[in-house]
């Protein structure tokens, strides 16, 4: 027992002495204060990188006739990192939206355009996610389905981080793997057992193509992803989107698990490029 304490003390002492002389640089607080004022835009950039496939976070029970009539989908994407009562917060945000909101529709020109519509005619969905360092084996135990994906994908993509998401309207969890390559291109692989992901492609996706790869059927599609301004840290749907990203995605099912591979809309990938990446996942 004494040697254990001695061993523990050696580690403690070494760590303490290692950084004992380290102090914050003068002016750091001023930089932080300056950063706070410009934080909104920085935060937005990061949040955008964390966005997952909007189809995944659509609230269940979406009113299809309303969708057909209005041809619009509004997705509330909340990445509520560090915030414990994420679900309560999401509900609070949703209940606060009581006026006209902006949604995105495909205009006559074939381009996505924002239009206004009453909030009550729009279904909001939300998901909260956090980065996790759990191994795939540990994650599998937590989420209850198989997660076997490589840490490196075709196209030079390597795994940056793994996020564990909970849909706020259910207790369902899904896993999101974020990859990037040296060309600053990013892809996100969402893994879920929620078949809404697969089925909703038909309802909400645009330019859908059914493809075959490694004995699997895959669906290629695009889906607009509006980026709204933030007010007091909350997404403001009553304002016109700052931009409309158009992620391209491939989705497929394997052993009851649904996969969605998306280019996030930051650096667009062609269908062939996405297929190459998907192939490296299917061929593992």
């Amino acid at each position, binding site marked *: 027992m004494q040697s254990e304490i001695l*061993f523990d003390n*050696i580690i403690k002492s070494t*760590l*303490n002495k290692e*950084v004992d002389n*380290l102090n914050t640089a003068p002016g750091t*607080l001023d930089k932080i204060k300056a*950063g706070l004022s410009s934080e909104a835009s920085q935060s937005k950039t990061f949040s955008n990188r964390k966005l997952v496939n909007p189809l995944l976070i659509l609230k269940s029970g979406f009113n299809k006739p309303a969708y057909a009539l209005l041809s619009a989908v509004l997705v509330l994407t909340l990445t509520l990192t560090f915030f414990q009562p994420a679900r309560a917060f999401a509900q609070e945000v949703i209940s606060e939206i009581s006026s006209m909101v902006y949604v995105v529709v495909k205009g006559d020109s074939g381009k996505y355009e924002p239009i206004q519509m009453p909030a009550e005619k729009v279904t909001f969905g939300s998901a909260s996610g956090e980065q996790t360092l759990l191994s795939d084996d540990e994650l599998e135990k937590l989420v209850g389905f198989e997660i076997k994906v490589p840490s490196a994908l075709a196209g030079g993509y390597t795994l940056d*981080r793994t996020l564990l998401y909970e849909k706020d309207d259910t207790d369902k969890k899904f896993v999101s793997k974020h990859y990037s390559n040296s060309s600053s291109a990013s892809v996100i692989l969402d893994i879920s057992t929620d078949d809404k992901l697969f089925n909703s492609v038909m309802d909400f996706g645009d330019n859908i193509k059914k493809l075959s790869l490694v004995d699997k059927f895959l669906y290629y599609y695009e889906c607009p992803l509006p980026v709204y301004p933030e007010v007091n840290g909350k997404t403001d749907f009553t304002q016109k989107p700052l931009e409309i990203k158009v992620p391209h995605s491939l989705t497929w099912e394997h052993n009851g698990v649904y996969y969605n591979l998306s280019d996030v809309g930051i650096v667009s990938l062609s269908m062939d490029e996405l297929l190459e990446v998907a192939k490296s996942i299917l061929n593992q």
Partner: protein
Amino acid sequence: MVDIDLIKRCQREESDAFDLLYEAYSTKALRTACLLVGNRNIAEDIIQEAFIECFKDIKKLRNPETFEVWFHRLLVRVCWRMSSKERKSVCENLDDSLTETIPCKEDVFKQVEHNQTSHVIREAINKLSSPVKTTVILYYYNNLSIKEIAQIMKCFQGTVKSRLHNGRKLLAKELRNAAIDIGWYETDYLEKECMLNAKRNSI
């Protein structure tokens, strides 16, 4: 001990409260970040990012008593995020400016011995996987409990215990491998570890 009043003042966005909170937590946070990412420059960026997020989100903290766990969680996540961006830097050693200066000639021998130990431990910690390394640092440097670390890392307490055990075992192994002139590494602890392992293997 968390100054609850200070946290509440920060939640009311009182500017001087932010200054006091920064003063109270920044140094320890910087040192933790430096141990986690192994690079002072990145650690300073992490501190800026962590406090920006802290000041921005502190209003959302419903229970001020949990500030320390909440803040450590935030800090660790920023560290992981920045480490992902600067992956190459993660395995770098701490830079020379962090090496202690030798105070006087009489202490030279002890200093060399200590630096050797520090070096081995530092190298060994850098070899640990991110979850194990984070656990070891939060436990040994930040003196956080197993329960608090589990809350910070959002995992089970058993997982923390297991990571801590694995971390100790790996550190012990590295120290034993490097213990050329330092006899006290060959402790009962290590022998016990070996016996335990042998027992486990024989089951």
